[in-house]
């Protein structure tokens, strides 16, 4: 699938924007924007997504550079964890009532 913005019909490509809201937290995807190159993409991201001190750091990634799992294969691709609830602490109920466990 062609990424919108990555075509001859569009002069400027699309960028995905990630913002770190505070030191110690991950960068989180906040949206996308339109810019001719990475320098302007970072500046535009600041103007567009951090007008109210929402972040201390910004990442921009060309939308076309992102590889995703195939949404149509949803079931099969993410099947492995299903039925493996022993990977969660809540599976082990016999220790209920025992402190610090």
């Amino acid at each position, binding site marked *: *699938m062609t990424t*919108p*913005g990555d*075509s001859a*019909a*569009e*002069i*400027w490509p*699309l960028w995905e924007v990630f913002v770190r809201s505070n030191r110690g937290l991950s960068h989180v995807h*906040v*949206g*996308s*924007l*339109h810019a*001719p*190159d990475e320098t*302007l993409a970072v500046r535009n991201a600041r*103007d*567009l997504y951090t*007008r*109210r001190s929402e972040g201390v750091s910004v990442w921009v990634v060309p939308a076309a550079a992102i590889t*995703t799992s195939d*949404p*149509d294969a949803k079931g099969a691709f993410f099947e492995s964890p299903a039925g493996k609830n022993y990977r969660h602490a809540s599976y082990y109920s016999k220790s209920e009532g025992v402190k610090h466990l």
Partner: protein
Amino acid sequence: MTRTITPDTSATAVISVEEQQFNDLIEADSRIEPRDWMPEAYRKSLVRQISQHAHSEIIGMQPESNWITRAPSLKRKAILMAKVQDEAGHGLYLYSAAQTLGATRDDMTDALIAGKARYSSIFNYPTPSWADMGSIGWLVDGAAICNQVPLCRASYGPYGRAMVRICKEESFHQRQGFEILLELMQGTDEQRQMAQDSVNRWYWPALMMFGPPDDDSPNSAQSMAWKIKRHSNDELRQRFVNMLVPQAAVLGVTLPDPDLHFNEETQQWDLGTIDWTEFHEVLAGRGPNNAQRLQRRRDAHEDGAWVREAAAAYAVKQIALKQSAGTKEMAAS
């Protein structure tokens, strides 16, 4: 992935696996994301709605930017600039959301400046007084919030997420407008008159922002079935008026509807008859400022062409420079 198109020969239509998945997601009140399969009509309907919404934000900068140079104080000027900048930002969030559906930014811009795309009719009304900055914030942004809060739960993920950001920012817009009117209403007789006159002009157009009455709204039913839209036009309009009445009392302004009265039975405020001929006139391009708004947008786009071209040329040059530097490095090693 190829889809098998099954001709509808049996009594019950056979639908593809993808369509069934789409229907299940909508049924479960989950979200549709950009790379999911979706019916062409759903995609088209969203592109139309999101791009119209984006255009409205962009054109919506004009009636207010009209007052930036003449704001009554430095504080009000700074607030107004921040608000107009927010509107530009809202337009950009929404254009990006439409791009995730395969629409291109350039096509959307071209449709707007060619006069082929619609935007909210409210922005075709003039702003002759400072009080209009108050009325736009209180009534126009107020109506927009009423419309947009349910859109935060729209079934298309990127649209809903853009609306969440927009709604957060809009609440400042509405409050600053209310405050402008409140200050005028606490001022001189002349200032009170200015505020009342402005409310008189904006009240009905603001109510028309919710769109035509339910029995005359062709796209509504499908849009609600797809869970893009969550409430009917009349329902949202009623909700808005119910909120406005007590706010108008705090301001001390009169809402210009002599038939407005509280209905004890429904516990709602019944409104008078809306003059839809005016709405259709403005929609048809015969509003007070339609031509001026489009011309201004077109001029801005054409005057800014050299900036876009220069930025694109610079980007291409930078890539070429990096590539040749890379080749040299390889040759050196």
